[in-house]
C-alpha cells in the first residue's frame, strides 16, 4: 500500500543505489575470499545500504561527506567510480587513493567524499571542521558526517557536536546504528538512551529514523539537509539499521546466534523492503530484477578491471608525504 503520490522515479533510484552498493560489497567480499586479492581488512555494509542511499540522495555533488572504516557504500552513493574504488581495495595504481589508502581510507575528493577513517569517531570533529571551513569561505555547501553507534562513546563525539553547535555549522551528523561495535553489542557499553539523547543534550535538532526504510531515510534527510542549508545550524540523525555480516569479511560472528541475524535479514532487509514498496507501487518484478542484475554486472566488471590493473609504481611510496623535507634519506 503505497501513498497515492508515491514518487516511483525516486523509489527506483534509491533501490538502484542500494543494489549497486550491495553488489559492490559482494564483489569486494569475493575479491577477498575467493580471489585473495585483498590483504587488508574490509568492513562491509551489507544490510545498511538504505542509510547511504537515502541520506546521500539528499546531497548536491559539491556537498561534502566523511565516513568510517565501513565507508564503501557512502563513497559509491556520493558518486565515486566503482572501478577506482575496487582498485583501491586491491591496492592498484588506479585506485581512488592511488592504492595507498585501501578500504579503510577510501576517498574521492572529486565527488566531495573527504575520506573514510580508520580511527573510530575521528571523522566527527573533522567533519565539523570542514563545515567550519565552509562557513569561513562563505559558500552554501553542507557536510554530512557519518559514524557508527560505537563511535558515540569516544570523546570526539562530544567535542565535535559541541563545536558544530557553538559555531553554528552546516553539518548533518549521522549515527548509522547497526547495533554492533566489532564483536561487542553496543548497548552493553553505552549508558543512557544512546545517540539521540546525547545529541539533544547539545541543543542540536535530532531525528530518529528506521534506517532500513530507504524512503523514510531519504525523506528525513531531505528535510534536514534543507534546514541545514537554510539555517546554517547542525542537525543529527540517528538511523537504526543492522549489520548482517561479521565485523570484517573474515569475522564469522560466532559471538551472536546465527538465528538472530537470520531473522533480521529475513524480516528487515532494506533492499527486500524497498522491492516490496516498488512492487506495491506497480513496478514489474522483472524490472526490479534487472536493476539487481545490472548492478551485479557493473560491479563484476569493476572487480575484473581492478584485478587486471597494475600495482602502483614502487617509487610512489615517497610521493605525497610532504612538500618540505625529503621522505627518502639515502643514508638508511
Amino acid at each position, binding site marked *: 500500500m503505497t501513498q497515492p503520490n508515491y514518487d516511483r522515479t525516486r523509489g527506483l533510484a534509491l533501490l538502484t543505489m542500494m543494489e549497486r552498493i550491495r553488489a559492490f560489497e559482494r564483489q569486494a567480499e569475493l575479491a577477498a575470499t575467493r580471489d585473495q586479492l585483498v*590483504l587488508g581488512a574490509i568492513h562491509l555494509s551489507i544490510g545498511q545500504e538504505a542509510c547511504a542511499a537515502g541520506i546521500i540522495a539528499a546531497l548536491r555533488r559539491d556537498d561534502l561527506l566523511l565516513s568510517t572504516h565501513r565507508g564503501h557504500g557512502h563513497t559509491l552513493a556520493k558518486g565515486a567510480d566503482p572501478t577506482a574504488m575496487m582498485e583501491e581495495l586491491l591496492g592498484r595504481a588506479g585506485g581512488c*587513493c592511488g592504492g*595507498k589508502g585501501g578500504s*579503510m581510507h577510501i576517498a574521492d575528493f572529486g565527488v566531495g567524499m573527504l575520506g573514510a577513517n580508520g*580511527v573510530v569517531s575521528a571523522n566527527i570533529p573533522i567533519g565539523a571542521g570542514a563545515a567550519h571551513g565552509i562557513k569561513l569561505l562563505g559558500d552554501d555547501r553542507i557536510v554530512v558526517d557519518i559514524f557508527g553507534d*560505537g563511535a558515540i562513546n569516544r570523546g570526539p563525539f562530544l567535542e565535535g557536536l559541541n563545536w558544530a553547535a557553538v559555531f553554528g555549522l552546516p553539518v548533518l551528523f549521522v549515527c548509522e546504528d547497526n547495533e554492533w561495535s*566489532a*564483536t561487542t553489542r553496543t548497548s552493553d557499553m553505552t549508558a543512557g538512551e544512546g545517540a539521540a539523547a546525547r545529541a539533544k543534550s547539545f541543543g542540536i535538532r535530532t531525528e530518529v529514523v528506521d534506517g532500513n526504510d530507504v524512503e523514510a531515510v531519504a525523506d528525513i534527510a531531505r528535510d534536514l539537509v534543507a534546514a541545514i542549508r537554510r539555517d546554517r545550524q547542525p542537525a543529527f540523525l540517528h538511523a537504526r539499521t543492522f549489520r548482517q555480516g561479521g565485523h570484517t569479511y573474515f569475522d564469522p560472528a560466532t559471538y551472536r546466534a546465527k538465528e538472530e541475524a537470520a531473522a533480521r535479514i529475513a524480516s528487515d532487509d532494506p533492499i527486500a523492503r524497498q522491492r516490496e514498496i516498488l512492487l506495491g507501487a506497480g513496478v514489474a518484478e522483472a524490472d526490479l530484477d534487472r536493476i539487481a542484475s545490472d548492478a551485479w554486472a557493473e560491479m563484476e566488471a569493476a572487480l575484473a578491471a581492478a584485478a587486471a590493473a597494475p600495482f*602502483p609504481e614502487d617509487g610512489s611510496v615517497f610521493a605525497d608525504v610532504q612538500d618540505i623535507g625529503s*621522505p627518502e634519506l639515502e643514508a638508511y
Partner: protein
Amino acid sequence: MGVMTYGGAALEALRQAMAADPTVWCVGEDLGRGGVFGQYKGLREEFGPDRVSDAPISEAAIMAAAFGAAMVGTRPVVEMRFADFALCATDELINQIAKARFMFGGQSRAPMVIRKPMGMWRSSAAQHSQSLESWYAHIPGLVVAVPSTAQDNFSMMKAAIEADDPVVYLEHKNIWANEGEVDQAAPYQWGTARVRLKGGDVTIVSWSDCANRAEQAGRTLAAEGIGAEVIDLRSLWPWDRTAVIESAARTGRLLVAHESVAVGGFGAEVVATVVQEADLKARPRRIGAPRALIPYAPNLEDQLRVTADMIADAARELCA
C-alpha cells in the same frame, strides 16, 4: 619447557598471573571474545567478566580508568588493540600515568601493563601499522618492552605484570603465530639484552620482530664466514647499554636495525650512545624505514620493510 606461540606465551603468562594474584585484571574492547588477536582467549571463561572486562570504544577512558584503578591498588593489563589507537590516550599515558608517582611526590604508583600491538601487518595501511617505540623510550616514568620471541613474550609479560611501574608493552602483530620453546622458569631481568648469535666481526643490534630478521641475516653472514653478534635488546627502557657497548667495542663495527622510521628512531640513541663510549673501526650504520607513511598496496608496503637481506648487505658493507 614446551613449544608455544608468541601470542600464546603472553596469554599463558597472563593467565598464570591472574590465577596467582586476584588484583590483576584486563580491560579493553572485545576482550570478552578473546581480543582481536586472541590474546585473551579463554580468560573470561576462567576469570569472569569483571576481571576480563570489555570496554566501550574509549581508549582514553580505558587508559585513564585503568590508571585510576591502579592507584587504588589493582594491577590492570590494558589492551589498546592497535598501537595506533593508543594515540587517542596519549595525554592519559604521558601526562598522567608516567608522571603521577613523581608529581605526587611518591604517593602513588601505576602498576600497569599497556599492550599496544604494533608494526606492519598485511596491508593495514597508515593508521594501523605504526611503530612508535622511540616515543615511549623518551618519556621518563615509562618502561618499554619490545619482545620478539615466545620465550620473551612469556617471561617479559610475567615481569611486566609484576612491575610496579607502568610498562608500555609492544608486541609485534606480524609474529603472533611464531613458535618457540618456552622455559617458564627462565628468569628475566629488565634491561638485559639477549645475544641471539655470537660473533666477532660486527655487532648487529635490533629488537621486536626486526631482531628475528637480524638473526636470520646473522646466520646468512655466518655461512659466509662473517661473524655477526646479533643482540636483541628486548627492552628499550631500560636498555642494555653495557652489552651493546662491550660488543661494539670488541667487534669494532656497529649496525642497528629496526622497523620503525629511522629519523628519530631508537637506533639513533643506540648509535649515539656507543660512539660516545667506544671507538669503532668503521662508521656505524642504522637501518630503519624511510621517513614515509605506511601505504596499503603490498608492493608499496614492501618498499618500507627492513628485511634480513638489507641487514646482511649493510653488515657486509661494514665488514668490507
